[in-house]
């Protein structure tokens, strides 16, 4: 007795045009960020063209869009991977290969860990690094540094965002080991240390700029206040009072030095 082989169901990939449309819309993920569903409306907006292509039946399409309007929150760059993966799962749902809850389960499982990775790498390491690099660059060479910084950051940013979307779409659940191999937390730690050094370079450059623009007192003030402000912030001082007091201390020191020089 020979077993009848199960009918082979082929999942037809979505046209590239549709995927490109979804990716473009993913850039608006946080347009209506709200407290109830967070990025849910953005996710629904982004995936809607894919659902239109996958579900010709309006009832099925509506059910699919409804499940993507559930709570969702992730880092906006990393969300591209989940969006790609959700389409991967929707293709399988449309082909009858997995239950309708599959895409939602996938999103719920990955959104927290990917948000943590994205926040830790992009928001608290890569972007501050480029910000500090841009600041030092402007102090050193002016406007060309801004142009170069924006170009390089966005080559990295857009490449990663597209790659994450493709990886999610092509690999689905196999996305996680791929991300683990990138060792983003280790890279993030190095970038943070480098950014702190760049902030130090900026402080050193301000000492010299101050001396050149307003005399030695400005250089000394910058050096002292870099130390005092860091110590105050480390002890929990708030940002704006620290800024105002530093400015006032600098101005006060200048008045004091001028009076001392005048009295001689």
């Amino acid at each position, binding site marked *: 007795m020979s077993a009848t082989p199960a009918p082979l169901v082929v999942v037809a990939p979505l046209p590239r045009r549709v995927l490109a449309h979804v990716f473009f819309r993913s*850039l*608006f993920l946080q*347009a*209506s*960020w*709200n*407290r109830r569903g967070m990025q849910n409306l*953005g996710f*629904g*907006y982004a995936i*809607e063209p894919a659902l239109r292509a996958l579900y010709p039946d*309006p009832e099925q399409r509506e059910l699919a*869009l409804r499940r993507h309007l559930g709570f969702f929150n992730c880092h906006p760059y990393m969300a591209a991977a989940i969006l790609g993966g959700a389409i991967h799962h929707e293709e399988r749902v449309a082909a009858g290969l997995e239950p309708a809850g599959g895409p939602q389960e996938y999103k719920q499982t990955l959104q927290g860990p990917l948000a943590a990775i994205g926040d830790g790498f992009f928001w*608290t390491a890569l*972007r*501050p690094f480029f910000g500090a690099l*841009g*600041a030092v660059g*402007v102090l050193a060479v002016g*406007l060309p540094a*801004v142009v170069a*910084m*924006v170009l390089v*950051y966005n080559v990295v*940013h857009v490449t990663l965002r597209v790659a994450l979307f493709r990886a999610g779409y092509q690999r689905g659940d196999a996305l996680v080991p791929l991300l683990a191999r990138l060792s983003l937390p280790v890279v993030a*730690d190095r970038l*943070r*240390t480098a950014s*702190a*050094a760049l*902030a*130090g370079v*900026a*402080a*050193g*450059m301000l*000492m010299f*700029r101050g001396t050149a*623009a*307003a005399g030695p007192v*400005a250089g000394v*003030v910058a*050096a002292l*206040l*870099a130390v005092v*402000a*860091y110590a105050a912030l*480390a002890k929990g001082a708030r*940002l*704006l009072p*620290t*800024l105002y007091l*530093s*400015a006032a*201390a*600098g*101005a006060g020191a*200048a*008045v004091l030095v*001028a009076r001392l020089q005048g009295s001689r």
Partner: protein
Amino acid sequence: MGYVILGLLAGLAAIERKGFLQAMLSRPIVLGPVTGWALGDAAGGLLLGPVLELLWLGAVNLGAAVPAHEALGTAAVVGGAVLASRQMGTPVTLEIALLAMAVAVPAALLGRYGERRAEAWNERILTRAEAQLLRHRLRAAARCNLYGLVISFLVSALVAPAAAALAALLIPALLRAVPGLAMPLRVGFFGAGAAACAAAAKALRARAAPLSFFGAAAGTAVVGLVGVLAGRAM
């Protein structure tokens, strides 16, 4: 006209910051020079951009936390500085830059409050999208997402020019009334700049941040001094 340009730039920056793209175009280091250039003083934007970038290096949107609105703050500070300097018939000077920071930096906190209100308002947009879905209008429901951009735009487009107008009103009056303030304020600008550098290093929360920050600052100072001394000896 300057206020209209400033409002447009601030509104677009607010959209780029959260609702669309997030490509660093709304960060102070980019928005500062762009605002200065749009208002006719790119150098003024380049003077303030690095200080504001370092000041708000830690202003990041983590989860549901709402940080200070650095884009709105930058537009307000640079706009205020350029518009005040225009009234005084000079480019943005160090003293004008410091006073613009003093007057307009709090606009970033007002922006944070506005963002929180916008997030609450966006729940109404979600309710509207759900109502469209009940009427089986799927595309209209999805498109509701874009309405949130309007609120972000409006908050910044209104607050940034208002804060800049306040700076443009107060700064020329103060500097004309007390001309002797100029020199101390110039020194104060570098005090504020140093505090911004410290704030950047502190915001990074890296274990090695203090060592890196102070080591690099000292290293730069030594290299600079050697350069100055070598220049004098030649």
